[in-house]
């Protein structure tokens, strides 16, 4: 109505008390129905955008170069686009990347559940993360009943945003940072860093670890893995010690992007305020902002057509440069394969070539696995891809030198450019 209502009438009265670390979002939803309902929308979202969106389309079909690039690693078998938070549990259980044979020493650990469920904060408190990660995926399955929910981001008593993932808290501690001292606006990005970050499983205990000790820039992460002597897998036929980058949204966005430097947070774009009658609340229907730019970007940019066009332009530039990098890396990889097959390569040169292949691919993957096709930090995306291209070409030249074979300098265009819908 037209008459203004007294402010007190708008304050929310909690209807039920929510236990600490309550895994069941439906219970929180009694007090906060708008937030709960919008979180539930993430279950059925299915609309795609040019480069992303909410269906689980296959990246391997869209860009078959990636089958080559991830050769010998589970990502070459099954790699889909992400879906909404309410599907996290279904999707982790369904992926063909899992190895559920617990007698195989390479079976999937429980660690893979770390970012998929609101049961985790409770389980981590109960078991400790070390014991959690020491279990197998299979063993953990009965304990996990809820997809991502309120307890992954909020403290029940105060509803404030919290770091819930021990790997995040520990990584910050090693950097000398205490999340408790972060401002509210910083927390509006930090809660996403519970999950949207590069990670690895440390040691035999598969202990979930964020490789941030040297910093969160791509070269600092490479240096970390180098010092740790870590590899995700060995590339078949070449035995190159490869690294897989995974959803480094937080690292990439905070690496001096326009929006980050302007003080914008993940939630500003992905959880914009929406209106329900008189109340404004944060939409918990987290998905691509290109599906609702008026709500998302419109909070700050009055001309939404303009900003949406800019995203399209930036993503196209990044997507094309990504393909240039992929072709260069495949050329390098082919050269290294041939050099290894030759059998008489100069070992120093060949090892250096493999090392550069590892680095070039991680740089490319950092941009590729990051889910915004460059938009979160356009200049950084293109700077890293330039370095990836140069590094890949230098790897190729070293491989050729290691056996003195000119044929290894062949360049190719593998597949047509990916088609976008």
């Amino acid at each position, binding site marked *: 109505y037209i008459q203004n209502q007294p402010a007190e009438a708008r304050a929310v009265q909690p209807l039920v008390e929510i236990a600490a670390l309550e895994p069941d979002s439906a219970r929180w939803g009694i007090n906060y129905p708008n937030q709960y309902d919008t979180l539930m929308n993430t279950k059925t979202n299915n609309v795609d955008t040019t480069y992303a969106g909410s269906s689980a389309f296959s990246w391997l079909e869209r860009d078959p170069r990636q089958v080559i690039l991830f050769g010998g690693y589970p990502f070459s078998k099954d790699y889909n686009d992400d879906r909404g938070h309410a599907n996290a549990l279904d999707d982790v259980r369904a992926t063909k990347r899992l190895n559920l044979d617990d007698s195989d020493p390479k079976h999937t650990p429980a660690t893979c559940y770390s970012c998929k469920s609101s049961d985790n904060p409770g389980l981590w408190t109960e078991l400790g993360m070390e014991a959690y990660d020491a279990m197998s995926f299979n063993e953990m399955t009965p304990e996990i009943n809820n997809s991502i929910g309120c307890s992954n981001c909020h403290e029940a008593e105060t509803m404030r945003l919290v770091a819930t993932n021990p790997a995040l808290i520990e990584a910050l501690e090693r950097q000398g940072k205490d999340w408790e001292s972060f401002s509210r606006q910083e927390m509006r990005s930090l809660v996403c860093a519970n999950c949207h970050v590069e990670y690895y499983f440390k040691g035999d205990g598969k202990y979930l670890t964020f490789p941030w000790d040297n910093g969160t820039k791509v070269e600092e992460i490479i240096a970390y893995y180098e010092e740790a002597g870590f590899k995700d897998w060995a590339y078949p036929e070449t035995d190159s010690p490869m690294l897989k980058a995974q959803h480094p949204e937080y690292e990439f966005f905070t690496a001096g992007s326009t929006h*980050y430097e302007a*003080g914008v947070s993940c939630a500003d774009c992905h959880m*914009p305020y929406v209106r329900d*009658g008189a109340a404004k609340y944060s939409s918990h229907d987290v998905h691509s902002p290109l599906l609702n730019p008026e709500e998302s970007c419109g909070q*700050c940019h009055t001309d939404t057509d303009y900003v949406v066009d800019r995203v399209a332009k930036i993503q196209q530039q990044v997507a094309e440069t990504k393909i240039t990098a992929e072709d260069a890396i495949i050329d390098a990889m082919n050269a290294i394969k041939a050099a290894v097959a030759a059998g008489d390569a100069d070992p120093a040169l060949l090892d250096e070539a493999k090392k550069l292949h590892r680095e070039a691919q991680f740089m490319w993957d950092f941009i590729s696995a990051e889910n915004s096709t460059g938009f979160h930090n356009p200049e950084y995306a293109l700077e890293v891809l330039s370095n990836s291209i140069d590094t890949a070409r230098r790897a190729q030249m070293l491989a050729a030198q290691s056996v003195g074979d000119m044929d290894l300098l062949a360049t190719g265009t593998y597949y047509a450019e990916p088609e976008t819908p």
Partner: protein
Amino acid sequence: MSKLPIIAIGIAVLALGYFALVSDAAAYGGSAPETCANCHAMDSQYENWAHGGHAHVAKCTDCHLPHDNFVSYYMEKGRQGAKDTYAFVTGNIPVAIRAEEKTKEIVQENCIHCHEDTVEAMLAGAQPLDRYCWECHRSVAHGERGATGAPYQDSVLYPTK
């Protein structure tokens, strides 16, 4: 045939009278910014205006209504008021409220009206001025980033460091 319009008008007058009574309509004839802010839909514009550089010199109506003469002032006030009220009562509130072209033209006239001294060289160009003042003066009207959909405390970006 001849009585129909009279009945219609009669009903309309009655309805309007009732409406005026319940809605404290007299206020809507005035120019107090608080009246605009009565609609929570206008909250963020109000708050951003109140924190902006013009709050002590220009009210909503100074910018948003034409001032060339008394008639056009009230004609436009009526038109906009009816439009806003209709949208509000029917709950047909857009996600992000945006100024119409017509609104922008009215506002532009008003910027120029107050600042004619300052902008005479700009206006004197051989080609017409083809942009709105707030394409450069993005913060004058409604805060740091122009009008925004977010509540004031959330639209002013928090310092990160």
